[in-house]
């Protein structure tokens, strides 16, 4: 196969930033000192921190060159499963940069903050509508923080009932944040296995559900990209014992306008605005992880709550049953407003198309690569599909090798080795914004890699070959960690 996407080009080395420092340089414009100098008590004053000293051009070149070592969605297809690496519309950035939003102080009086409050109020309604829930809080800073919020709601709910439950049921396909969030809230995790079809069985849940169990955390579609068909039965079982059902909504991109979690037995769901709602992932964040809940759970949501009275939006700081506060202010407003802009740009039909096409793309990849890669579960998938390295291990080739090699073809590798239940998992989530042509190139590239695994395994083991650095030794790095210069 001719490599249609990747090639090699001139890029630049760049030392660590302090290695460029020269005494006396400064890259910022220092404001005029138009008031008298008031020196602070020397007993309180420290030495100037030894920060690097550079000119403005030094800074520009440094970060421009660094940026060129990175791969983003704008560079190419980034089918990182479970992360929904869709196109991040530039208009959202324009909206976030409006001075009225960007320079707004969170504690300025409400009468001079109506625009932001309205935006948040509306976004809460939209997310509730999309998820089929009654109420939303935008406070959580990311998905995992949303999970914690969910656990805290569950905790507050049981406490209100005078109960103290100690466990949460978590399927083996769950994302690591699920059990970790449960722990953070003081719950112990009860791990259960998914059934042979890759989804949970009601029986497995029934077996462990009891009155000391606060609830269950379910990801639907799950991390295998499969729809949990038994969700209703499972939630009935959990509800019957007084438990609540938490939905990890990281995979909402598959079901907008198709299924409303609130209508199939889920009580609480978090959103990853940085996934489903197109806000940039920022090289790791910031994200935003609102949760929506059914009516009964609204009283437990964190404060402040935004309320609308007539045409006025107000913040309500005291709610008797609220579990408290999760973040210093109202959440990641700058991210919310991008998601808000996205929802308004798409509309209901548009968001439904997003899910339809995300699922179309994933199934097309699944069908196209099934002869080249072993399919973990041979069933129709949702927005992502999971393969393994089973066919390649005979050549001594692992998922990692293929992931590294696919870079040489100009693609970001899929998520690998997750979910943990699938040995050597290769989890591909194309998202709806990739075109058929791009996906065809990706498929061709993966076919080529799979072929190379048999014919020329060395080229995979030594991959990647085009990137600025070759394969990095993560093991040694962790053995003797060097975390600062």
């Amino acid at each position, binding site marked *: 196969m001719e490599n249609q996407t990747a090639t090699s080009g001139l890029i630049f080395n760049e030392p660590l930033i302090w290695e460029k420092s020269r005494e006396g340089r400064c890259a910022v414009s220092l404001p005029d000192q138009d008031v008298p100098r008031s020196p602070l008590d020397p007993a309180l004053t420290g030495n100037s921190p030894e920060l690097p000293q550079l000119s403005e051009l030094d800074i520009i070149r440094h970060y421009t060159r660094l940026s060129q070592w990175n791969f983003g969605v704008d560079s190419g297809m980034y089918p990182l499963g479970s992360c929904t690496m869709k196109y991040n519309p530039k208009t959202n950035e324009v909206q976030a940069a409006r001075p009225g939003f960007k320079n707004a102080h969170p504690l300025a009086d409400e009468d001079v903050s109506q625009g932001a409050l309205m935006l948040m109020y509306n976004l809460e309604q939209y997310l509730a509508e999309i998820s089929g829930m009654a109420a939303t809080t935008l406070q959580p800073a990311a998905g995992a923080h949303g999970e914690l919020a969910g656990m805290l709601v569950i905790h507050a709910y049981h406490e209100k009932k005078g109960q103290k439950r100690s466990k949460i049921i978590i399927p083996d396909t769950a994302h690591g944040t699920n059990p970790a969030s449960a722990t953070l809230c003081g719950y112990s995790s009860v791990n259960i296995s998914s059934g042979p079809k890759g989804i949970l069985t009601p029986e497995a849940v029934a077996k462990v559900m009891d009155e000391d169990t606060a609830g269950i955390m379910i990801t639907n579609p799950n991390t295998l990209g499969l729809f949990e068909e038994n969700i209703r039965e499972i939630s009935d079982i959990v509800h019957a014992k007084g438990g609540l059902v938490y939905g990890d909504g990281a995979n909402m991109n598959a079901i907008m306008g198709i299924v409303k979690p609130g209508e199939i037995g889920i009580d609480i769901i978090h959103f990853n605005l940085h996934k489903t709602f197109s806000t940039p992932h920022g090289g790791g964040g910031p994200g935003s992880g609102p949760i929506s809940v059914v009516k009964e759970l609204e009283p437990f949501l964190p404060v402040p709550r935004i309320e609308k009275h007539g045409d006025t939006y107000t913040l309500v700081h005291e709610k008797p049953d609220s579990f*408290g506060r999760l973040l210093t202010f109202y959440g990641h407003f700058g991210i919310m407003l991008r998601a808000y802009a996205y929802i308004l740009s798409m509309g209901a039909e548009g968001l439904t198309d997003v899910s339809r096409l995300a699922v179309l793309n994933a199934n097309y990849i699944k069908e196209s690569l099934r002869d080249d890669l072993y399919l973990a579960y041979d069933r129709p998938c949702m927005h992502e599909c999971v393969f393994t390295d089973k066919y390649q291990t005979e050549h001594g080739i692992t998922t990692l090798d293929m992931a590294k090699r696919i870079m040489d073809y100009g693609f970001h590798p899929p998520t690998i080795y997750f979910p943990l239940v699938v040995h050597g998992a290769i989890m591909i989530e194309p998202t709806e914004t990739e075109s058929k042509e791009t996906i065809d190139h990706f498929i061709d590239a993966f076919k080529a890699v799979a072929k190379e695994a048999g014919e020329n395994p060395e080229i995979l083991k030594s991959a*990647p070959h085009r990137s600025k650095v070759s394969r990095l030794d993560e093991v040694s790095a962790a053995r003797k960690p060097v975390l600062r210069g």
Partner: protein
Amino acid sequence: MRYLPHTEQDIKEMLDKMGHSSLDDLFETIPEKFRVKQEMCLPAPLTEWALNSHMESMAKTMAAAPEQKIFIGAGSYPHHIPSIIPYLVSRSEFCTAYTPYQPEISQGTLQGIYEFQTMITELLGTEVATASHYDCGTALSEALLIALKKKKNSNIVAVSSLVHPHHRQIINTYLGPAGYEVISLPYNPDGTTDMSSIKGREDIAGIAVQSPNFFGCIENLEDVKAGADTSNAMFIVSFTEALAYGLLKSPGSFGADIVAGEGQSLGIAQSFGGPGLGILTSTKALMRNLPGRFVGRAKDKSGKDGFVLTLSTREQHIRREKASSNICSNNGLNALTAGMYLAAAGKKGLREIAALNHDKAVYLKNKLKSSGFTTAFKRPFFNEFVMKVPEGFKIKREALKKKGIIAGMDIEPYYPSLKDHYLFCATEIFSRQDIENLALEVK
């Protein structure tokens, strides 16, 4: 829709591959009864142009610099942001990438964060820093959890009442359900934390103070350290105004075990309170207890230097319920931004900006004094301070809003005994004229 590339033809060809005839067929595994019957009830889609008008009409209602002069800090600070920073951060190679799981094609993010980790520990006098946390409040809560985990026989922490009230709420939220107890340390008349109530108590896992504290006062960290030591408790310092450490002795230099802070002041827009930047940094001894990601040095196959995410065995994706925290996505782009800011300001610039903040705040305080305000606390401050306001101030303050001036923030809701006390902040963005205008108007 311009974000969706599929043509009719594409859809047909792709469906054919699966033997489907319609997009609906794709959802065959979803029982019919679960399917949404009606279209979602959302506003009709807006064009890019209608969106612009709509968003601007909302943004216009907001008090915001530079049009408005908002003399409030309290955890969110107006500072100048050099134009180079938004440009560089918005380069899509940075902002449209995700967590650098694949280091070979993520060296930009990785080196940038490594540099941030280094500069932030330099600023704070500590040894290791994570790649970022959500914000100061959550970082501080995690710091207290570390203290609790490390001191096995204790489930109590002591937190200064001068830690930002919202952060104390977050701490209660994080620590409550797991059954931990939080003791609130009262404050001295000079505006510092009163450590006497826990003197010598051995059952305390960690002691947290904020410096500069919520009143703007610089805490006596030496005393707090001594108190922590006699209690054999972990010494935790937080801060909401990172620029203060351009001028103040670093918390690390006082022997802080963990420093949890807010980095918004380092080149990050206020954005109505978020996203900010949680800073979490500590002694090397606590490295493996810190939550979230680290970037570390590594070598590639040919011996070239590079960077990777490291020590991930502490993290949720490997350790699951036994992880040091549940954090996954963090506030990475803002850490990169803070790194850019620290490097751009540099040794000389950061000091000067910090000094200017202090100068402006002192100037404001003196002007307010002349206008009849009284000093609430004598302890030195950085760029914010509490004043008792003269009679009639509240009415003037309301009127001033119409003129685009927001004259401080009432702290009575947080400290009911401090009636008529307002927290004022001045930073380098305010001119002498701005300050004099305010003082004149509230006279």
